[in-house]
């Protein structure tokens, strides 16, 4: 279904529920994975996913169509993750430029984590990154979002995002190469 037709359904009171059903079907899986990489545990990701779609449902009338619908959805999900992480760490604001000391603890505490050797190595590298670096890397590498989309989601300059991504990519390549030698 084209985005325009979906939006038409969403913005009409009579077809809003039908439109929303379609929207959830189209985007919730990708939204979940984006959230999961940020909050790490499945249960937390599930909670954040629900809150995200409640916000989307309430705010769809305010969507100004300045970006793609998917970008707008991921931006809401991203903000919801930041809010969740702030609540979790009992801070008013999440420090994006520091790394998460509880990364490994959260990962191992989750029953839905399969600790294989390669994923462990990968997570070890990711845990050493700052939250900002990790988010940008995940969005580009795993979610395959464009730099322009990441810029809109994170509200950051596109050139800053590019430079962060390429520096992280370099770090990861180096670490993996060293570990396979």
């Amino acid at each position: 279904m084209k985005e325009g037709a979906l939006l038409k359904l969403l913005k009409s009171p009579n077809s809003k529920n039908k439109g929303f059903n379609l929207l959830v079907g189209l985007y919730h899986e990708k939204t979940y994975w984006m959230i999961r990489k940020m909050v790490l545990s499945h249960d937390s990701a599930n909670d954040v996913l629900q809150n995200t779609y409640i916000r989307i449902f309430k705010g769809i009338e305010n969507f100004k169509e300045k970006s793609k619908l998917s970008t707008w959805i991921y931006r809401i999900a991203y903000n919801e993750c930041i809010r969740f992480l702030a609540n979790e760490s009992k801070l008013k604001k999440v420090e994006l430029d520091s790394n998460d000391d509880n990364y490994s603890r959260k990962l191992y505490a989750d029953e839905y984590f399969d600790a294989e050797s390669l994923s462990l190595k990968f997570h070890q590298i990711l845990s050493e990154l700052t939250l900002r670096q990790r988010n940008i890397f995940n969005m580009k590498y795993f979610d395959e979002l464009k730099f322009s989309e990441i810029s809109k989601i994170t509200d950051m300059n596109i050139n800053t995002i590019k430079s962060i991504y390429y520096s992280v990519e370099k770090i990861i390549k180096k670490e993996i190469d060293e570990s396979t030698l």
Partner: protein
Amino acid sequence: MNQHYNKLGFKIPQNYFKESKDQIINSLNTNEKNSTIKNILSIYKYPIAALFIGSLILYNFLNFKTESYEYDQNSPIIYSIISEEDISEEDLLEYFTNNLAINEIKIPK
């Protein structure tokens, strides 16, 4: 999502996406019902409050009784005040005899 995704080792419960979609839709329906009730309440809360206060005032108004005192017109004291006439001893005696003394005296059978 690309093929490297499984490198992260994240797993999900069986049929998770099917169930989570239903869960999201259900939670939205509940949320919508709650917000509809809230909206109705927010629209009508002032008229309801005004009606409640109005009915309280009306109830109190209908049941409001001005205190009235009924005076014994036969009492010489009252009579003298109303008529502005002097009270005589005879009148007093007659009054007390009729109204007080008779009630107090117990006549043995």
